[in-house]
């Protein structure tokens, strides 16, 4: 007999399908390969050969099949192509197919212009994303699905990147959103990513096939797709064969393209497949058992003394670290011995966890032990401090620093790698000098190792131990965790062992921390006395890799996971007044609280407030950026320049023409945050009515999302799409949005460009928004340094409306005046604010970024957070004219960025000013400016603080940075 076999080797599974001579499917099989690709394929094939004797045509498909095929010289077919073959055979009437795989997402448009799309380098919206989120919720994929089916509502969650999603999900959980609702939101995020990110403006409609593992197994995902695309059962097809669909396509391909092979030939080819030597390996972590023993011996010395809580008598000090996912409690004796420690998951309810433990503690302590001071740190600081009347609240960085000092008095660097976060602090002159936290593209942490261990079928501790004595650990790269997934896939394909991969992953986490988060050029930069902590460092392979990479020995305290709480307890000891305000045993018995979530309507930030009401009537509000939500009066809140600038731009739009020639729409995005007054005046002078787009919200982004061609462009640019649609909705006759290669030359810089995105975004909008045409979108190329030319270009582009050159010249002149007036007004307001601060002895924060960082949807209300911490906020353009540009190590070639350099140089000379740089994720230019601004500040003994923002923002992390800055200033 003659058969055709299709084999699909994916990132986690192997699928095979056998076709008979008349192309009927006679056999299909689906198994996980646990990274033993070749073995798994052979096993399946051998079974097939036993069952069906004869001659075989064969073809391999799938991302992990590529290597196997080229090594074995068996035919290969790309998986999207094999999907299209399968569809043609089985569902010839399908219009569209959506396939989600482990790390790929694909859309095939089959009718009306065939087209296939695959996700780019960011892997949001794939099976890996779902797994990652399930891990975060501590459920299995199936449980996630099962939970999601019970959901009542959905929340918006960023899906482009797992790290962004996490920043959305964690607060939701902490605010008490139900697991079913969060689960459903995760599936919805996958749908949104597919519909908006992948389809990019093309509608998914008609008869739609849904393929791939996740879409086959997760009912909730199926429902979300059907709902979003408004498909009925007839139009949404979920084939039974879905998991083996590509294998089927591959078999179809084989039947037409493959030669015949005997089963021996196929087995021989696969068995003898020469492994491509693409694996790059490094030295083993430990060469011998003895070496490992010595390593363990050395680290066992960093221990704390303990005392028995059952027999101790005297004073004690309580330290609590309420992290975002775990809570740690430490009790110390008068002579700093550890009496008690506790480490637990908090399930988003730190108050319950700690009050419960405190009750137990009170029972154990009786009258023998008396807590005379207590301190709390971490995300839940405020909550616990007021809820349980804890004496002191301190910022995490200070707590960790205090703890580290007790292990190493000369400590100059602390690194904490937890399950989800990496935090690093540099210590200079006994103060925290610089803080680094992991961000989207540097996300590899502890949970990453865990996810991998699980995927490969091992518990995490066993998996990491495997790596300790690996012979040839593989190099896996260090960008995003999803990239690491592909690297692992490649290593597997090239025959790396589980041991080698395990060691490689540990080393990747370390490299990610050193080169991505800390961005060290050489290990020396970190320091000589390094204390490591956090749960991930309890993993010996990670610790060893870290020491290897740095080439020095570091200190890992035995209480590595408890350092925050330990530091808090030490802090309490130092500050103790002899009597603690801590909630008493008596009070604790009556302790209870009610929690409610409300949205603050104080301003447009719409903070989600968590209001706790305690049994004794006290109230606590958290989740707020500013103090308005707390009921503070406007006059008690510190002023900031952002409110002034925003209102100047948007509230003062001038329209004096009774019978305007036409209505022009000016989008409130990118460069317009600098030039709005100028263009408004110009158009008013020319007899037009000006309409500007509404204030940005998340909705603005979502509204235009389907027309964004590049997923990795910065968020400020992405918002532009929604602003254009908003203007068209308002019925403007046309949108005016000039392209500007050059910005205004403000003097003394090497050049005065705009960044490529600001300069040419109108061109992109025109090409990708089908609603725009020659009539309703006018976007001349202008150079503002040539007013005469601007006038004539305006006259040309507005000729249709009868604008003459003479009129244009007059209007443009007035426009420049308006622009200058605006810039002067900013400087004036800046001056006033500086005086205001100095009269009251308040520190001044210079929030330096681009003009468009004024957008509340872009800055996420950071300035309010700063005000609430007691600083007066001004922006870079308020002070950039007060000094000459500094000498730089780089080319000073962009106008907006040049302002930041000047502002930094000015701040460097002012005792009471501190610069905080806002950086939009994906801004390549800031890769250059951040280092330079840091340099300017640090040369002058100033602390540099950077806040990275995107479509979401991790306000918790931002708060830590700002409070640490304040702590360092003190």
């Amino acid at each position, binding site marked *: 007999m003659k058969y055709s076999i299709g084999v699909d080797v994916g990132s986690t599974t192997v699928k095979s399908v056998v076709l008979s001579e008349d192309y009927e499917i006679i056999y299909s099989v689906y198994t996980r390969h646990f990274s033993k690709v070749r073995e798994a394929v052979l096993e399946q094939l051998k079974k097939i050969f036993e069952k069906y004797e004869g001659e075989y045509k064969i073809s391999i498909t799938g991302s992990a099949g590529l290597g196997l095929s080229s090594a074995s010289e068996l035919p290969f077919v790309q998986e999207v192509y094999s999907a299209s073959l399968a569809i043609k055979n089985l569902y010839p009437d399908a219009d569209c197919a959506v396939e989600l795989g482990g790390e790929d997402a694909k859309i095939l448009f089959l009718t009306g212009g065939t087209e296939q799309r695959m996700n780019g380098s960011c892997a949001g919206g794939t099976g890996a994303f779902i797994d990652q989120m399930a891990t975060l919720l501590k459920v299995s994929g199936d449980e996630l699905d099962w939970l999601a089916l019970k959901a009542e509502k959905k929340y918006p969650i960023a899906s482009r990147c797992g790290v962004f999603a996490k920043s959305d999900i964690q607060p939701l959980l902490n605010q008490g959103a139900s697991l079913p609702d969060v689960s459903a939101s995760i599936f919805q995020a996958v749908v949104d990513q597919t519909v908006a990110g992948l389809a990019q403006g093309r509608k998914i409609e008609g008869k739609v096939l849904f393929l791939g593992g996740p879409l086959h197994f997760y009912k909730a995902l199926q429902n979300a797709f059907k709902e979003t695309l408004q498909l009925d059962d007839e139009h949404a097809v979920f084939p039974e064969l879905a998991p083996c669909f590509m294998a089927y396509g591959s078999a179809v391909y084989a039947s037409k393209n493959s030669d015949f092979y005997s089963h021996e030939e196929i087995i021989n080819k696969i068995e003898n497949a020469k492994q491509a030597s693409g694996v790059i390996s490094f030295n083993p972590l430990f060469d011998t058992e003895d070496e490992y023993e010595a390593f363990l011996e050395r680290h066992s010395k960093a221990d704390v003394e303990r005392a028995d809580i059952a027999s101790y008598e005297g004073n004690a000090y309580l330290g609590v670290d309420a992290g975002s996912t775990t809570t740690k409690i430490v009790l110390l004796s008068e002579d700093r011995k550890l009496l008690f420690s506790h480490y637990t998951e908090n399930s988003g309810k730190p108050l319950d966890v700690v009050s419960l433990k405190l009750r137990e503690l009170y029972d154990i302590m009786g009258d023998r032990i008396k807590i005379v001071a207590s301190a709390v740190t971490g995300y839940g600081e405020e909550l616990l401090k007021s809820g349980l009347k804890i004496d002191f609240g301190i910022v995490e960085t200070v707590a960790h620093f205090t703890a580290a000092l007790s292990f190493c008095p000369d400590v100059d660097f602390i690194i904490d790698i937890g399950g989800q976060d990496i935090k690093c602090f540099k210590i200079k002159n006994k103060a925290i000098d610089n803080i680094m936290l992991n961000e989207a593209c540097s996300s590899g942490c502890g949970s990453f190792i865990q996810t991998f261990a699980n995927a490969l079928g091992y518990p995490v501790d066993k998996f990491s131990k495997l790596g300790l004595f690996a012979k040839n650990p593989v190099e896996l790269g260090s960008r995003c965790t999803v990239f690491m997934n592909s690297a692992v896939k490649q290593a597997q394909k090239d025959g790396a062992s589980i041991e080698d991969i395990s060691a490689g992953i540990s080393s990747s986490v370390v490299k990610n921390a050193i080169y991505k988060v800390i961005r060290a050029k050489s290990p020396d930069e970190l320091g000589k006395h390094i204390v490591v902590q956090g749960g991930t460092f309890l993993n010996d392979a990670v610790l060893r890799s870290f020491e290897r990479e740095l080439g020095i020995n570091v200190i890992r305290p035995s209480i590595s996971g408890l350092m925050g709480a330990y530091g808090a307890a030490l802090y309490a000891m130092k500050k103790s007044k002899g009597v603690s305000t801590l909630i008493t045993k008596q009070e604790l018995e009556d302790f209870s609280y009610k929690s409610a979530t409300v949205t603050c309507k104080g301003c447009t930030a719409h903070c989600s407030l968590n209001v706790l009401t305690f049994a004794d009537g006290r109230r606590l509000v958290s989740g707020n950026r500013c103090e308005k939500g707390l009921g503070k009066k406007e006059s008690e809140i510190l002023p900031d320049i952002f409110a002034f600038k925003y209102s100047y731009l948007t509230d003062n739009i001038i329209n004096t023409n009774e019978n305007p020639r036409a209505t022009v729409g000016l989008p409130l995005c990118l460069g317009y945050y600098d030039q709005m007054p100028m263009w408004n005046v110009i158009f008013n002078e020319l007899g037009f009515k000006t309409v500007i787009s509404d204030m940005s919200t998340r909705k603005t982004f979502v509204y235009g999302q389907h027309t964004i061609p590049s997923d990795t462009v910065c968020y400020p640019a992405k918002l532009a799409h929604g602003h254009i649609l908003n203007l068209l909705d308002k019925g403007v006759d046309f949108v005016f949005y000039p392209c500007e290669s050059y910005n205004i030359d403000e003097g003394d810089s090497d050049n005065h460009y705009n960044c490529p995105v600001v300069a040419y975004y109108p061109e992109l909008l025109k*090409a990708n928004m089908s609603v725009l045409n020659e009539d309703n979108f006018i976007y001349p190329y202008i150079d503002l340094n040539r007013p005469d030319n601007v006038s004539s270009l305006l006259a040309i582009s507005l000729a249709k409306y009868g604008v003459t050159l003479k009129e244009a010249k007059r209007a443009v002149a007035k426009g420049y005046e308006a622009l200058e007036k605006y810039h002067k007004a900013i400087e004036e307001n800046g001056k006033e604010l500086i005086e205001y601060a100095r009269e009251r002895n308040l520190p001044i924060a210079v929030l330096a970024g681009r003009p468009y960082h004024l957008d509340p949807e872009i800055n996420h209300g950071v300035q309010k957070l700063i005000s609430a911490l007691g600083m007066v906020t001004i922006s870079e353009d308020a002070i950039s004219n007060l000094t000459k540009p500094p000498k730089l190590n780089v080319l000073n070639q962009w106008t907006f960025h040049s302002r930041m350099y000047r502002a930094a140089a000015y701040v460097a000379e002012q005792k009471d000013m501190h610069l905080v740089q806002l950086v939009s994720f994906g801004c390549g230019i800031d890769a250059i400016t951040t280092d330079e601004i840091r340099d300017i500040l640090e040369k002058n003994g100033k602390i540099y603080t950077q806040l990275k923002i995107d479509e979401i923002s991790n306000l918790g992390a931002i708060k830590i940075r700002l409070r640490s800055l304040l702590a360092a200033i003190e």
Partner: protein
Amino acid sequence: MEKQHAKFTKEMRSTHKILIPDMLPIHLKLLAAVMRKNGYNVELLQNSSRAVIDEGLKNVHNDTCYPALLVIGQFMDALKSGNYDLDKTALMITQTGGGCRASNYIHLLRKALEAEYPQIPVISFNFSNTESSDGFKFTLSMVFGMLNAVFYGDLMMALYNQCKPYEKNEGESDKVLDDCQAMLADKIVNGGFGKRNKNYKYILNAFSKIERTERNKPRVGIVGEIYVKYSPLANNNLEKFLLKEGCEPVVPGLMDYLLYCIINNVNDGKLYGFKNKMTRLSAILYKILIKMYRKLVKRVEQYGFNGMHDFEELRKEADELINQGVKMGEGWLITAEMGCLASSGTENIVCTQPFGCLPNHIVAKGMSRRVKEKYPDANIVAIDYDPSATNVNQENRLKLMIANIKDNAKL
């Protein structure tokens, strides 16, 4: 805070070896030879191990684009190799001076050198007057030599790509390429490098003698950010991969980029209504170069090969797709090249770019929709390159594009 960095002095011309990264394998061999002839002791860097990327990651901000990371990584790796006398080594890097980050590479390189190798001077290779050094000056004869190198380089690249996929005797195209390189190298040393007609003839004859099968393979154009587009180190041997997959790579020449840089000066004047020395000079230079290049293209076509795009055609294409005012990075040139390839029978296009490349948000990903509107059969795949993107990921996307070609051919 400006630090005093080491300068390349006149004395160093005789004492120092200058290292340059190998961006375009065919062209740079010639360019290096021209510089040697002019008294500079240059060496093309060939190191390409994983250590190059690691050094890059260590020494450059990781959000900086991949080309900077690779070039700087290649320099640092070379300096650490022990193969060079560190007191007698200088580095050379290009500097475009445009509004893209690339103008800052030289400064990033200096930052990387600061701690360990403060004595090593870095020479800026630029025609835009962004910076100069006493020891390195463009002389007229060197500029002419370099121009010729670009002409020959473009010629050999085009011919090689048209012969290699069809050669009957494996390796013949490479042999011919080596032979032509040797011939030109000899002329650079012994004279006759400037005799273009004669040298064109030699090269064209040599390539046309290669026995070939019928020219029927699908053509795949490569466009993109200039370094990633040409450098095998950056694009993971893209040309070789396409050859292996049974395609004929079509790679637009380096002269396109030069003309693009020159005409942008003229364009600025036209767009913003001014004239100065720069615009006038550029207009003249442009006219001379395009005339010289057209002669070359004509010769190529006489031999039955496909000639390179006419630059005026590219500009026309640009006007229909985008505006020539978009001039940062490779700007409108990328869009125009995609259009020209599609209109001249190379509908399959790989658009290479560093992950997160700013200009390419606009001109590549941002314009592919418009290109497809104009050329519905265009089969464009955008591939991101970065230190951690794996071969598997890139090849899988390329394979999809290639499967589509084969599918389209059947229909």
